[in-house]
């Protein structure tokens, strides 16, 4: 029962609402207090007060008051609505939906509550609920077009295409006067309907519909592209060809149109002459077409000739991106060789006549050829770092001020593993052009790769806003600069600053959260503006925003840290590797002590700083729970990523969630059964199961028995491991895996002997410095006695690699 107020207080209450809407929080608060003085238990007023307090940033107090308000007046829709708003503000959308629903039950006609609920539902992807809300909203105001469109979108997103189309058609039928030709909303809605028809797979009908609206529609390009697409799908070749030619006449720089044109003309892959003819036709019309020439040179039998023409043209002009334009052809080894030969040919020719015609720009002709060759030998498919170095040095001799050469040199050095030198060289390149953001960013990245985190930050700081009070990091945060956060996090991991590394990874995580939330405003905005197709695209994009490579990297980094923390082997800030000679138990104790001390410090700090400080992150008592938070998104959005599945296995095995661990293992097996880590996991899973099986619930046992099919449960693991070792002889990563597993499956081996064998791998003929780095990490992680010796030997073997220095 709403509680009655006297007339005077009623007007006061209205004033509170007005003040809240106008953001005059202080005045609103005062008025609310006035009402509460006379009616201390007036729920609505308490609720409004809570809302104002919340806006002022005092969330906890607001929540307490909001609850009190509900207790005082359970039957008030205002109280429930406010409660929902408070939850929404906290981003607890599920609870918010519940509160809104209660409010709506009490006040079914409130458009405001209905709308708030609807947006939350679509944000949470509760499509059935969204359809219901949208239907109700349409019933309330059926004369507004966007309500119809919104219902169609709801059905569309829920996957019911027929229903979505019906809704749109029903609205069109109810129109008495046809909408004006310049009505943008109508034009968009009609195109939207067209895409829905096409999505149902009924291209003939989509085409017919498109033809009927083509004349009046405002989005010409979309009409033309869709028509071409439908005609292709319907196999109406001639018309499709015409449609694509029409598109090329509009924009001949769109590679996609060429590909599609060739496809509909039915030119087979081998018939390169015919393909070339098409490109030639257009490049004759407009000789400036670059994309055309680059693609044209991709066809084989005429390849040499075309490539020569193209290369000569580009190198004469000194176009820096020549290599980047051509490197996609390198997957074909014959083309790779042709290009290499051509570049050499060109270089020799230019070198000999360089004397007489000294080019005014050192980067044209010979210089460009040197640059091309340096990149060629640095590229992973045609790598020969010595040669690359030779060419780049010649280039630098010729043009000492050229950023490109210097940058390439740094990149070549990076590939030799010498991050120290690479960072120095890249910084030299940066100094050649201080106004270039690109080279600045590169230099910062190389510094981070070399663990110079402070210097890296300083370098990026040159290009951030310098008026931000807390230094460049704050600005990078505002700009959601995820590459920096990820690189810096990984550098902090290498430096052993667990807390700071976790902080960076959490930052990336949170930025993705923000991107997820950013769509909220568009649920209403896009509908109001009538841009439905773009809106649907956006909703679908948001659904997989976390499959972004930077999320994957940050999440994997964080999971790894949390795993180490759980295993008690992380060297947290205080405990560095100095005491690695002490035995393992002692080290663990020390680490525990340090963690405890840190935790206490963190708790103290947490009270002062509401933003989670780094120490608190490193001091979590439940690292596996935190790891799971990162992991869930990884497994949901990038299930095809082997690293993700491997990380999932590690976490779930430690949490004794055997069914889930098995799920990850099976997924990893399906992705790459011969991967060394997958072998390790298979053995570890079976070992774990053997000791734990009896204690598991019978239903779980049944699942594991039937789904664990990688090897027979009775397999002799020692034998299995030895077989694996023998089968992959000559591959160091596989050898590492097999040796690591010996400790688990072979009674004769213990930690020390395994470590010895790992260290001995250094003598293997095919070992690379990357492999050695992996071994180094393992030895360091287990606090092995072999560590120093191994590092010394590795440094002798690869003197240029910074990691062993």
């Amino acid at each position, binding site marked *: 029962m*709403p*509680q*009655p107020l006297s007339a005077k207080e*009623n007007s006061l*209450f*209205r004033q509170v*609402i007005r003040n809240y*809407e*106008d953001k005059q929080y202080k005045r609103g608060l005062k008025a609310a207090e006035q009402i509460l003085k006379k009616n201390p238990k007036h729920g*609505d007023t308490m609720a409004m007060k809570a809302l104002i307090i919340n*806006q002022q940033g005092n969330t906890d107090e607001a929540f307490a008051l909001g609850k009190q308000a509900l207790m005082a007046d359970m039957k008030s829709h*205002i109280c429930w*609505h406010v409660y929902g*708003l408070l939850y929404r503000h906290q981003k607890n959308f599920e609870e918010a939906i519940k509160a809104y629903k209660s409010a709506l039950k009490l006040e079914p006609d409130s*458009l*405001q509550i209905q*709308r*708030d609920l609807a*947006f939350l539902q679509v944000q949470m992807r509760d499509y059935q609920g969204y*359809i219901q809300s949208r*239907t109700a909203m*349409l*019933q309330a105001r*059926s*004369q*507004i*077009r*966007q309500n119809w469109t919104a219902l169609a979108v709801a059905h569309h997103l829920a996957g019911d295409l027929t*229903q979505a189309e*019906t*809704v749109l058609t*029903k*609205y069109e039928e*109810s*129109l*008495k*006067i046809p*909408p004006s030709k310049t*009505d*943008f*909303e109508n034009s968009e809605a009609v195109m939207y309907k067209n895409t829905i028809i096409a999505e149902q797979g009924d291209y003939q009908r989509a085409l017919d519909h498109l033809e009927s609206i083509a004349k009046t529609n405002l989005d010409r390009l979309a009409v033309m592209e869709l028509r071409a697409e439908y005609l292709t799908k319907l196999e109406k070749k001639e018309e499709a060809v015409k449609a694509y030619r029409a598109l090329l006449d509009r924009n001949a720089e769109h590679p996609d149109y060429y590909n599609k044109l060739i496809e509909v003309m039915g030119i087979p892959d081998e018939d390169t002459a015919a393909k070339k003819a098409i490109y030639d036709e257009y490049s004759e019309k407009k000789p400036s077409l670059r994309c055309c020439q680059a693609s044209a040179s991709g066809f084989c039998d005429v390849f040499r000739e075309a490539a020569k023409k193209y290369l000569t043209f580009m190198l004469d002009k000194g176009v820096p991106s020549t290599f980047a334009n051509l490197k996609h052809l390198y997957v074909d080894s014959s083309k790779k060789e042709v290009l290499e030969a051509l570049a050499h040919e060109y270089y020799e020719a230019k070198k000999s006549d360089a004397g007489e015609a000294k080019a005014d720009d050192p980067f044209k002709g010979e210089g460009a050829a040197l640059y091309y060759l340096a990149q060629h030998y640095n590229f992973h498919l045609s790598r020969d770092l010595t040669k690359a170095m030779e060419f780049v040095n010649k280039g630098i001799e010729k043009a000492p001020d050229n950023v490109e050469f210097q940058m390439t040199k740094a990149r070549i050095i990076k590939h030799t593993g010498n991050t120290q030198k690479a960072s120095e060289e890249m910084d030299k390149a940066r100094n050649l052009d201080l106004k270039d953001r690109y080279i600045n960013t590169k230099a910062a990245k190389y510094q981070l790769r070399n663990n110079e985190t402070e210097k890296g930050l300083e370098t990026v700081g040159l290009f951030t806003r310098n008026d931000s009070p807390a230094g460049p990091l704050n600005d990078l945060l505002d700009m959601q600069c995820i590459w920096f956060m990820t690189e810096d996090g990984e550098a902090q991991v290498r430096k052993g600053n667990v807390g700071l590394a976790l902080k960076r990874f959490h930052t990336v995580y949170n930025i993705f959260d923000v991107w997820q939330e950013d769509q909220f*405003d568009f649920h*209403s905005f896009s509908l*109001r*503006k*009538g841009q439905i197709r773009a809106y649907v695209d956006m909703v679908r994009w948001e659904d997989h925003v976390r499959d972004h490579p930077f999320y994957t990297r940050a999440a994997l980094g964080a999971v790894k840290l949390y795993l180490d923390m759980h295993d008690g082997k992380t060297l947290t800030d205080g405990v560095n590797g100095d005491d690695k000679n002490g035995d393992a138990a002692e080290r663990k104790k020390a680490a525990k002590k340090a963690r405890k001390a840190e935790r206490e410090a963190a708790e103290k700090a947490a009270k002062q700083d509401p933003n989670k400080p780094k120490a608190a992150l490193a001091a979590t008592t439940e690292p596996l729970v935190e790891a*799971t938070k990162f992991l869930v998104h990884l497994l949901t959005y990038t299930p095809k990523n082997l690293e993700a599945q491997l990380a999932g296995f590690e976490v779930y095995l430690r949490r004794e*969630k*055997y*069914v*889930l661990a*098995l*799920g990850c293992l099976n*997924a990893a*097996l399906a992705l790459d059964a011969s991967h060394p880590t997958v072998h390790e996991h298979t053995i570890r899973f079976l070992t774990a199961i053997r000791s734990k099986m009896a204690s598991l*619930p019978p*239903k779980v046992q*049944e*699942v594991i028995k*039937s789904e664990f099919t990688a090897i027979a449960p009775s397999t002799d693991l020692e034998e299995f491991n030895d077989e694996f070792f023998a089968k992959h002889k000559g591959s160091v990563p596989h050898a590492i895996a097999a040796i690591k597993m010996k400790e688990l499956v072979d009674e004769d081996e213990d930690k020390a002997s395994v470590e010895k064998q790992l260290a001995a791998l250094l003598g293997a003929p095919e070992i690379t410095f990357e492999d050695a780095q992996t071994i180094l990490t393992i030895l360091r992680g287990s606090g092995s006695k072999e560590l120093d010796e191994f590092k010394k030997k590795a440094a002798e073997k690869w003197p240029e690699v910074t990691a062993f220095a």
Partner: protein
Amino acid sequence: MAEPQPPNLHEGATTGDVEDEVQAAKSAEDRKAAAAMASMGSNGADDANGSTAVDQEAASKAMKSLGGEANKPAAAVQKKVKVDAADVTLLVDQLDLTKPKATELLKAHDGDAVKAMKASIAV
């Protein structure tokens, strides 16, 4: 006795979004800005009301015919499956799920916990 409320009460005005109710603008400048915003995408704010173009009756009729169909598919999805509480607990524990999610998963597999677990880890 119900207390009178302002007709266009919207508590969420700062965070939410007022789509078709025209909010009282605070100042002349705000009003101008609002008018400009409204006319930006929709070619004249009048279209938004659409009262000239839409036959009210036809619209509501069209809607009624929709209403009947819309409810059908939703009802079909809701199948009655008995679910054992112990199985729900098992799934919550083993698969790291929330209770509603676990219940949903069980229902989708006729209440068979083994089947549900197998399906959840199927590659």
